[in-house]
């Protein structure tokens, strides 16, 4: 799919700014009118290029909502005709599953699971994931600390270190 320069400009602005940025401001940044910007946004949504307006939340700071994230290496037996897609679909439909990637290398699918507790994740792996027909083996890695997520560094001192006025 080939996008126009302005469509890419709008996407980059969205990617690098708060999801709450007003359309007027996007328009100014991209040197467009408000109407033009709105129609570009509609078009991008329609093409499913612009999929969702997301927020990055550091849940580890919120008592009672810390949660547990695990990355699971899954080896599967691909099926004739549908390859890995069918088993991937069976996995990503679980609401606990945040991401599923087909990987090159030592295993086939990388699955990211979020749960409320280690127990919950363990139960999901043993009861739901490893019991799927095509799944040959799973290796579960629990995430101990998130330093950087989706390009955003958590726990960083973001203070402006510049002097207030300089030539």
């Amino acid at each position, binding site marked *: 799919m080939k996008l126009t320069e302005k469509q890419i400009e709008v996407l980059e602005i969205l990617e690098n700014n*708060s999801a709450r*940025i007003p359309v007027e401001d996007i328009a*100014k940044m991209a040197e467009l009118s408000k109407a033009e910007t709105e129609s570009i946004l509609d078009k991008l949504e329609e093409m499913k290029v612009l999929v969702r307006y997301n927020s990055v939340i550091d849940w580890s700071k919120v008592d009672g909502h810390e949660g547990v994230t695990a990355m699971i290496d899954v080896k599967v037996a691909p099926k004739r005709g549908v390859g890995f897609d069918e088993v991937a679909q069976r996995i990503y439909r679980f609401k606990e599953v945040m991401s599923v990637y087909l990987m090159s290398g030592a295993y086939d699918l990388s699955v990211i699971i979020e749960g409320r507790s280690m127990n919950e994740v363990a139960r999901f792996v043993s009861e739901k994931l490893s019991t799927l027909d095509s799944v040959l083996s799973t290796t579960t890695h629990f995430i101990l600390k998130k330093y950087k997520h989706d390009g955003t560094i958590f726990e960083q001192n973001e203070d402006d270190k510049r002097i207030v006025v*300089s030539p």
Partner: protein
Amino acid sequence: MKGTKSYLSKTVEELKPSGIRRFFDLAAGMEGVISLGVGEPDFITPWSVREAAILSLEQGYTSYTANAGLMELREEIAGYMQKSFGVSYSPQSEITVTVGASQALDISLRAILDPGDEVIVVEPSFVSYVPLVTLAGGVPVQVQTLKENGFKILPEQLENAITRRTKAIILCSPNNPTGTMLTGDELNAIAQKAEKYDLLVLSDEIYAELAYDGEYTSFASIREMKKRTILISGFSKGFAMTGWRLGFVCAPEEISQAMLKIHQYAMMCAPTMAQFAALEALKTGKSDVEGMKKSYKRRRNYFVQSLNELGLTCHMPGGAFYAFPSIKSTGLSSEEFAEKLLLEEKVAVVPGNIFGESGEGHVRCSYATSMELLQEAIKRINHFLKQNQKA
């Protein structure tokens, strides 16, 4: 016994302290200030560059380098200038690595000026030009540019300022504080005058990487101009490396060698770790610079259009990261405006008159700050304008 004699040099005593100082003192003690008064990037130096400097320290590169700078760095600079701006300089004899572009400016002026030699400074200008000319024994001749002309010097204005004593002209494009960028044609017109009157041109190209509209032209790339050009640049703005204090100057061999004499006695060499950082910046920093440039351009578009909507008319600056709106509609002087805005709304801007008389009626706003803060600053300026309209 109380002496009446002053131990200070007359030249220094008569030098005006920078007006920026007062605003710094005023703003420094306040909490919650949104600063648009900063003359440096809001980005931290790219990590690959910082990491290279750390590595150089770990490996023990803590001694002096050659006076003119690490040969490897000068070679990279030569390659970079050729590739980015189409100018070719010999790393052996025409490039000197300096402590920021400021030192480059200082040794350039000291290398070329005799007492009484005149240097044309295009106003509004960076605060250091006039004092540095004076300190080098020269006489600064200020030419005031107008908002109507986009703060560009007209060839006839330049010609009118030239006398028998004129030795050089200092150009800065993209400009601090106006953001104005001169086109190839406009530079050509200046080049013709330089040729006609046999002048040198000190071209301060520190903002060359931050040119947003159209092609950037280096003065030295104009036909026949390399021999008249002292090209000053550095890593501070484009590569977000202000605190490293690393710049460089390219000039014909004779001038370069004269500058090197001053540099070797007064400075010895630029800091070694900063030179290693700069080397990395040239080798791998191009994509970082491109990313920062895109980000500045978007913020410029947002900020300048928003200022204009508020009635603070502002030309679209072609480069750097400054907007230079007129505040004449408020009836306040630039100092009054800046001071009131700071005290009432906690937004720091720099009064235009600090950059020369022709800057009066304007303020310099740096848009090198986050979008969220720019949006908030626009809200506060809007509130300020409404409050002051009523009064």
